[in-house]
């Protein structure tokens, strides 16, 4: 007798708990409230990342194609993964003296762990985060980037504000 009662109370309890769960899902089925799913990639045009989003390390250039990197190599020293390589060259300045300037600021995105140390430690504020996040490529070598644009030069006033 007892087992029969247990059998039926189990069924009752099972159906009730099922019903409680179904009520939650059913509520969202008829009244979704808000749609939380991102419609990516359809929303590419309107998708805006946060200002602080860590997409990749970039070197901002102004409209005269000038950046603030002096080629001091502090970022290369601070990067824990060796993702940054600094290649400098010597060029004569206005007085004819040879000075060291940046030739190539090579950034290996594939090796970067987004720790932010390079950006934090750069004494000249030359680096920043870029918001681009679509980094999937077919060839790894495409992830090796030169951050200073061709033909760019050092901005005159350079000290950190």
């Amino acid at each position: 007798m007892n087992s029969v009662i247990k059998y039926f109370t189990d069924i009752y309890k099972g159906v009730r708990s099922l019903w409680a769960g179904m009520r939650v899902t059913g509520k969202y089925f008829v009244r979704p409230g808000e749609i939380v799913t991102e419609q990516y990639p359809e929303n590419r045009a309107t998708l805006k990342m946060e200002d602080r989003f860590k997409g990749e390390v970039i070197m901002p250039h102004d409209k005269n194609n000038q950046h603030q990197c002096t080629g001091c190599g502090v970022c290369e020293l601070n990067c824990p993964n060796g993702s940054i390589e600094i290649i400098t060259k010597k060029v004569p300045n206005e007085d004819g003296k040879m000075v060291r300037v940046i030739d190539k600021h090579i950034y290996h995105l594939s090796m970067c762990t987004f720790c932010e140390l390079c950006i934090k430690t750069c004494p000249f504020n030359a680096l920043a985060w870029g918001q681009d996040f679509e980094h999937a490529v077919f060839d790894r070598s495409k992830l090796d980037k030169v951050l200073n644009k061709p033909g760019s030069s050092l901005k005159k006033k350079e000290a950190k504000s």
Partner: protein
Amino acid sequence: MSEEVTKNIIVRDDEDYIINMGPQHPSTHGVLRLEVCLNGETVKYVIPHIGYIHRAIEKMSESDTYKQIIHLTDRMDYLSAHMNNEAVCLAVENALEIEVPKRVQYIRVVLDELTRLASHHLWWSAFGMDLGALTAFFYGMRDREKILAIFEESFGSRLLHSFNTPGGLMHDVHPDFQKHTMEFVRYFRKKLPEYKQLLTDNVIFHNRTQGIGKMSRETAIAFGVTGPSGRGSGFACDVRKVAPYGLYKEIDFNEILYDEGDSFARYLVRMDEMEESLNILEQVTDNIPEGDYTAKMKSIVKLPEGEYFQRVETARGELGIYIVSDGKKFPYRIKFRSPNFSNLFVLNTLAKGGLIADLVAISGSLDLVIPDIDR
């Protein structure tokens, strides 16, 4: 050797029927291989094989400065990234006797609890999924997304923040940080009852977890099972209570303890912890004082010669960090005592004699994160 541990000794036999669960099994949540010996459907023993995702983080730390180590610790228990960062920072700060600003302490607690919530969301989702309740997964993910949005706004990344640095934080939190956090707390208070209706009260779920994988308090202590898994067996091991760090001394919260020790008790501990995290957030978030986001630090941090130990409570248990310094800018040796490593090896004791389907329930209730085991 304690009796609890000797009971765990495995005798292999050539006749054994062995089945490999993993390293690519969805319910192990990572590359973990469980060598399961079966007798019909009954588990005779389980041998975990680890090391598939070993990255030598401890060895790599020996050639990194203390600031550079931070980003490596993110990648151990990626769901408790913030607490892992904090462990290194606290160790360095205590060694150098640096007083971090009050603002930093408050923000760290808020981030700790948000991370804990996000981690428990993911565990809840995945645990439900392991036991066949796929619906739960979407609800957990929906709420976790809100926390990740707060993280993204302030730190620029969702999972691996590297936001702590010895002496404070990398930069100040976003101006909307407090507002959004409180919005989330209010939002989630409303949503938590849904979790109860969907999973906690479900009869199928009860049958799958109640009385499954019973762990006694002695076993938990013998294996060093900490975190919610240990507290489900009545082992009071919350580092926030037993060895408070940062601001936790001043916060009023309860340590959740259940005595049953089965998978369901471990589940309930985490559910109650979510509620407790919300309480902590309510106490702290609105009171974040103004001030600096970092203490004055030299650009090269050097610890004086000696040994340092610091432990913190991550979402899965006690993380200990042991630093030996020879006075240089790199640590001489670093050892992480990661919670998941200890929590994993109790699996054999719990699963022995049970059914293979229960093994999934047990490993799910232990909430293992594999990269933390292998480091």
